[in-house]
């Protein structure tokens, strides 16, 4: 309605041509405004990368690539190495995936193959709500539930049954790698489930029906036909969850134990890149301590960048395959 009224004067009165032209010129203005905002996103992201690169310059020059393999972290003598934190970050995330992937993919199979439309949507909504729970609340809950449980039951039980493995030795404090992994595992469920479910649901019906018609059981058709068909999407969801787990800060900081040494045992306290950033960045002073922390942030950024890139690529490949048949 309004648009016709605005266009009328220009049509009826030839003398008003300049106004009409200016209104059409509004297109250019609108294009320019939105372009400026889009460019600001580009600029701020570039600035982020630039700041991380420049901020870590002192540390990169002093330590070089040895930074990644050194285990020394001593703010007093200005010696810094990333290895204990890299180790902690990767170990907690990988163990979290080991716990989370089978359960998450299982749940995704249930939601896409067995549960009916509305029931599946409702359950998926609840799972996605789980993703909206703030990370600090996971940390709060973990401190008062998982940490004591780990100290009293899970830790001792693992020690008595798998104590011959170096992974489950030493004293149990409650906080540590395994505790952080458990919390992370719960936090990354939603990502694995919702993306894997999408991938499974984009598998064509004919695939399932062909398998069933050949006499396969429901499980055989699911496991041997549907899951392999959607495997790239499922792997993509795992990469996505991996990236999330690597960058997760608050919940991990609260239960990791903040020990800057490397321990083989999963029951020992350790540290991760986000956790050391959270606990030391505000107090860091001098030239090298902040620079080393910013370099850690840069390393973390690159890791998540690569994983997210892989995830996006894999998800893109499966969904385009899925939409191609439709």
């Amino acid at each position, binding site marked *: 309605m309004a648009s016709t009224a605005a*266009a009328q004067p220009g049509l009826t009165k030839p003398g008003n041509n300049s106004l009409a032209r200016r209104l059409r010129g509004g297109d250019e203005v609108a294009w320019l405004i939105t372009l400026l905002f889009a460019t600001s996103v580009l600029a701020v992201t570039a600035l982020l990368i630039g700041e991380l690169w420049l901020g870590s310059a002192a540390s990169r020059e002093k330590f070089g690539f040895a930074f990644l393999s050194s285990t020394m972290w001593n703010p007093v003598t200005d010696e810094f190495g990333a290895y204990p934190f890299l180790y902690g970050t990767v170990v907690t995330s990988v163990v979290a995936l080991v716990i989370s992937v089978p359960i998450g993919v299982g749940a995704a199979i249930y939601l896409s193959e067995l549960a009916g439309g509305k029931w599946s949507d409702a*359950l998926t909504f609840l799972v996605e709500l789980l993703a909206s729970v703030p990370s600090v609340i996971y940390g*709060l809950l973990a*401190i008062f539930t998982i940490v004591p449980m780990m100290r009293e039951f899970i830790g001792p039980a693992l020690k008595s049954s798998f104590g011959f493995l170096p992974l489950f030795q030493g004293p149990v404090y409650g906080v540590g790698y395994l505790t952080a992994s458990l919390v992370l595992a719960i936090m990354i469920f*939603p990502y694995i489930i919702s993306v894997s479910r999408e991938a499974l649901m984009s598998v064509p019906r004919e695939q399932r029906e062909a398998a069933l018609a050949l006499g396969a059981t429901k*499980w055989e058709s699911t496991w041997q036909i549907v899951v392999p068909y959607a495997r790239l999407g499922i792997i993509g969801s795992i990469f996505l969850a991996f990236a999330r787990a690597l960058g997760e800060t608050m919940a991990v900081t609260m239960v990791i134990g903040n020990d800057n040494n490397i321990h083989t045992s999963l029951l020992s306290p350790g540290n991760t890149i986000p956790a050391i950033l959270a606990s030391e960045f505000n107090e860091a002073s001098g030239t090298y301590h902040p620079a080393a922390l910013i370099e850690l942030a840069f390393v973390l950024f690159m890791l*998540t960048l690569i994983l997210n890139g892989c995830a996006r690529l894999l998800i893109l490949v499966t969904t385009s395959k899925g939409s191609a048949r439709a």
Partner: protein
Amino acid sequence: MTARNLYRKGLNNVMLTLTGVCAFVTVSTLFVILAYLVYNGGKSVDFDFFTQLPKGTGELGGGMANAIVGSAEIIAIASLIGIPVGFFTGVYLSEWGGPGYCFLVRYMCDLLNGVPSIVIGIFAATVLVKPLHHFSALAGGFALSLMLIPITAKSTEQFLSEVPRSLREGSLALGAPKWRTIASVVVPAARKGIMTGVILGVARISGESAPLLFTSFNNQDWSNGMRDPVASLPVMIYSHAIAPYDDWHRQAWAAGLVLLTLVLIANIAARLILTRGTTTRG
């Protein structure tokens, strides 16, 4: 043959049941979290929590009035920056989208979306805190806006591009210029979807504490303005949960319950808006 078939049937039943168990475990986690938080937080939320300032260590009572107001302040700043930037970026991507530059912008949005929140906090601190030598609500709001921008841009782009061509063409055929078409036809048609995206984004950032640790920091008192450190609920939960005082833990539970309630309400509201807004696709 029969033994083989019995095995296959048994495997079928066992595995399918297991997937059901997996789904049950994951969904019930949400209810366990809710129940535990309501149980512990419900005992601790009282009138004082909303009206009083935090008490010093060792003293009983007090509340988190300053953190509630502080969170609102930071989220308001983040929304003021993040929603317009995200929205217009989304409009650009959807309406003037093409290969090349748009691809770059879209890629950068995705990249920004994947940056760990702690890294965003470090970036905001190096840009707005270290040069000015003090923590500020403004820096906190800026950090959170960086997380809000890609979420808003992505949902805006998605819902705008779902608006049918016929609507646009109708408007253009009536002689409306493109900007007019976008402003009075396309955006209103996608209104509900865009609102959903914005609500989800704001809910997401309101629970973030990692970017605030180095930017808005914390404050036991009322803040003196936007250029001062300011308390926020997530950071308060963190500092109270890791402290060794029982009464602080009680406060942390209360704050956790309040925060989670707000976040869940926002999520459910967003869902309701979207399901009632199916007309946008018509």
